[in-house]
């Protein structure tokens, strides 16, 4: 049996097709696309792929398929689009069990009538739960709720050889066995295919207020950021936004809770932010969105929280030195910023910019990761940067995927 026939046997004729130009992953053209409808079918697909030595890249909505390094090989795309169900919503237990192809927005709508939510922002429109776990993305509200790793309580994964393995479960409090959900989160599809995920939920707050103001630069904002973040107001998010690296800086504080509480806390936050602070119920267009789109280069920068103002300065200075157009936005409250570099920039200049910022964050144990970039830029920079524990990571990869067929090369150190 050839590979195509084996894949069709695994999940049905209709669910497998030959790949086209549009299936290319970061310039790598796959041969086949298979869309299994269940964990069992996924296991059969992966067994067929193993028999035929096919490299495999998992795709949800494809919104972040070009993140990381281009894969060394991608013979088969496993699409999760036919696994998009909400399997179980245990409202009384604040738990939801989903398939990977379910979109965050659809889950949000399904949970809303129960006044609950999965506290993970949709940072890319159309993103699926599977892709969100695989890339470990989180937006502003992670300040209060943590990120994917903190909310994922159970996971089913199909390994490279087709073995189906679960870890965690349906209860939030659970220390039985290793917490493999942590390893799969942010592993970019290099350890297995997630076919089911269980998350803890939170009640939807009754009220919210966004307190916003603008500062001339990061120096002016620094003491206010420190005061708000060090306050007892328990903000859900403290965000900064700067459309250009030397533009005025918007600071926005999100407060959520019961109505009288939110009103009082918004007043207190307004006093901290200064006379020009505005209070609104509405979130701005830029909220929870990356400051990059299309073919721009997108960076993620992390530092300890008190270093955020200095990081903003470092970005401004590096942009000025290299002449790049850079937008910055992100979560000052957790120490994670994102930067978007104009797609017209010369790759070597972008590389220099990244190197400068890596030198800066290295002093504080932070990191600069190139989330996405034009192919020419990726060939000029190490997208992941220095990684601690790489040897152990390689050993993990060798254990989970000894033939290195899952998204080969996409992850850190060429894993």
């Amino acid at each position, binding site marked *: 049996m050839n590979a195509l026939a084996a894949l069709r046997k695994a999940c049905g004729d209709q669910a497998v097709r030959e790949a086209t130009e549009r299936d290319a992953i970061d310039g790598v053209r796959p041969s086949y696309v298979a869309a299994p409808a269940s964990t069992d079918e996924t296991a059969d697909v992966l067994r067929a792929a193993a028999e035929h030595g096919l490299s495999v890249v998992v795709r949800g909505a494809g919104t972040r398929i070009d993140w990381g390094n281009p894969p060394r090989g991608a013979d088969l795309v496993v699409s999760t689009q036919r696994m998009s169900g909400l399997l179980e919503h245990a409202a*009384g237990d604040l738990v939801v069990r989903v398939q990977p192809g379910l979109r965050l927005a659809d889950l949000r709508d399904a949970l809303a009538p129960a006044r609950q939510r999965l506290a993970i922002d949709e940072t890319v429109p159309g993103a699926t739960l599977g892709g969100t776990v695989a890339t470990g993305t989180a937006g502003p509200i992670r300040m209060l709720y943590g990120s994917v790793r903190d909310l994922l309580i159970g996971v089913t994964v199909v390994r490279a050889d087709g073995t189906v393995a679960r870890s965690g479960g349906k209860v939030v409090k659970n220390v039985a*066995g290793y917490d493999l959900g942590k390893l799969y989160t942010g592993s970019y599809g290099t350890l297995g295919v997630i076919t089911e995920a269980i998350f803890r939920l939170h009640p939807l707050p009754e009220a919210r207020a966004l307190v916003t103001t603008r500062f001339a630069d990061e120096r002016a904002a620094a003491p206010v950021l420190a005061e708000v973040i060090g306050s007892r107001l328990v903000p859900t998010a403290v965000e900064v936004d700067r459309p250009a690296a030397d533009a005025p800086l918007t600071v926005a504080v999100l407060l959520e809770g019961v109505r009288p509480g939110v009103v009082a806390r918004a007043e207190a936050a307004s006093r901290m932010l200064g006379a020009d602070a505005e209070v609104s119920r509405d979130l701005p267009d830029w909220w929870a969105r990356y400051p990059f789109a299309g073919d721009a280069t997108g960076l993620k920068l992390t530092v300890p929280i008190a270093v955020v103002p200095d990081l903003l300065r470092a970005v401004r200075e590096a942009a000025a030195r290299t002449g790049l157009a850079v937008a910055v936005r992100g979560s000052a409250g957790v120490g994670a910023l994102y930067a978007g570099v104009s797609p017209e920039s010369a790759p070597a200049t972008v590389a220099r910019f990244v190197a400068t910022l890596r030198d800066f964050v290295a002093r504080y144990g932070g990191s600069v990761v190139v989330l996405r970039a034009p192919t020419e830029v990726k060939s000029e920079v190490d997208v992941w940067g220095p990684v601690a524990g790489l040897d152990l990571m*390689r050993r993990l990869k060798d254990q989970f995927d000894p033939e290195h067929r899952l998204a080969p090369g996409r992850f850190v150190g060429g894993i």
Partner: protein
Amino acid sequence: MDGDGDGSRASAVAAIATRMRELIGDEYVLTDRIQLRTYECDGLAHFRVTPALVVLPDTTEQIAECVRACVEAGVPYVARGSGTGLSGGALPRADGVLIVTSRMRDVLEIDVPNQRAVVEPGVTNLQVSKAAAPYGYYYAPDPSSQQVCSIGGNVAENSGGAHCLKYGFTTNHVTGLEVVTAEGDVLELGGKAIDPPGYDLLGAFIGSEGTLGIATRVTVRLLRSPEAVKTLLAGFPSTDEAGAAVSAIIAAGVVPAAIEMMDALAIEAAEAAVHCGYPEGAGAVLVVELDGPEPEVAATFEAVERYCRENHAFEIRIAGDDDERALFWKGRKSAFAAVGRISPDYIVQDGVIPRTALPDVLRAIADLSTRSGVRVANVFHAGDGNLHPLVLFDDEVPGEAQRAEEVSGAILDLCISHGGSITGEHGVGADKAKFMPRMFSDADLDTMQLVRCAFDPGNLCNPGKVFPTPRLCGEVPGRHRGVHPLQEAGVAEVF
């Protein structure tokens, strides 16, 4: 395990002792039988093994050296903090080395602007909060043993506590670790910044029960102390009404800092031990605590009180100050030990169920108790479905211990059949490894052990814990082993 025979293992341990004496000093390397026996068990005292050697290092490098010595000689080793664990996770090996971190108890840094503390593994949980308190901060995970349990142990067990309902567990609060890997390398995982690139080794390490290495320095997130804390104690006719009140609170979208429940037998024990003065005649009590910004707590607290009354609470007390709050908690926090007042022996069980299954499971536990004649006192973190049934018995009466074990095991089966877990916070350790196959398939356990094989291919780091059968970490079959690491790293190309 003793492939080379007991004799050669013993001489290997003796050689390690000599090496450690040179490195750490005689007084911190214990080989005397009586001294060794001090370390024969952790908080789960019916598992006892006297270690061949105990070392008390004071630095990361000493721990690394000790681990390397063990790995070179093929000698198993176990790390231990304060020894308060309740699953035998720090149970020593008779043919191995016990590495005790209790001398490493410095709070290295309270970094207020970055909201982090950096501490040595032997620092107690409470010590972190005490060190942060002058700045208005605290460390959120608060296991009942927080006065004595060590942060290193908390990391190994992913410890929770009463307040983890709202704030999460150790894994949600540790942002960085320095570890000595299972093979003796010193490695930094994370730090004060979040999201280090690569696999989340930190997340895999925390809660691995000391089987992947030894944490030698811990960076934790500090939280701002809440502006307001309000605690109520409510007496109910039975656990049914108390359970219904919990459901109503959660359904209303309230996330209390803690909701704790005790049943009549547990209350009786607590009264006998600490005279906590809980409402007389109560079939169940709830302790509900809210914390956060003042106006938020005030509004929500009213609702909580209402839900308790609507569900037939016959008495509600509200703590007026910290002393009264402490009194409410005293009964709850002393419950395990208090059971000693009403029963000569008891087993502390730790299982989890989906919270909504609480009434069903409590009825089933009552049935089990009636049928077997074994008394069960119930204490639980009601908000997250974490049960701590206390199974009472008298070891002097032939057959009672056996029956108690059976009831205790049957309770775990109840948890599993309701989609829960065999442990919410005490860990699997030596105690529950045999229950793991009831909760996980062979493939599940095998997959977890792939992690073990990556970290500890020699299976020397706390062996025999968590998994009922070790996996052999040999070469993994496969047509090829992927590309050369240098090629992967982009250092070399193969043409």
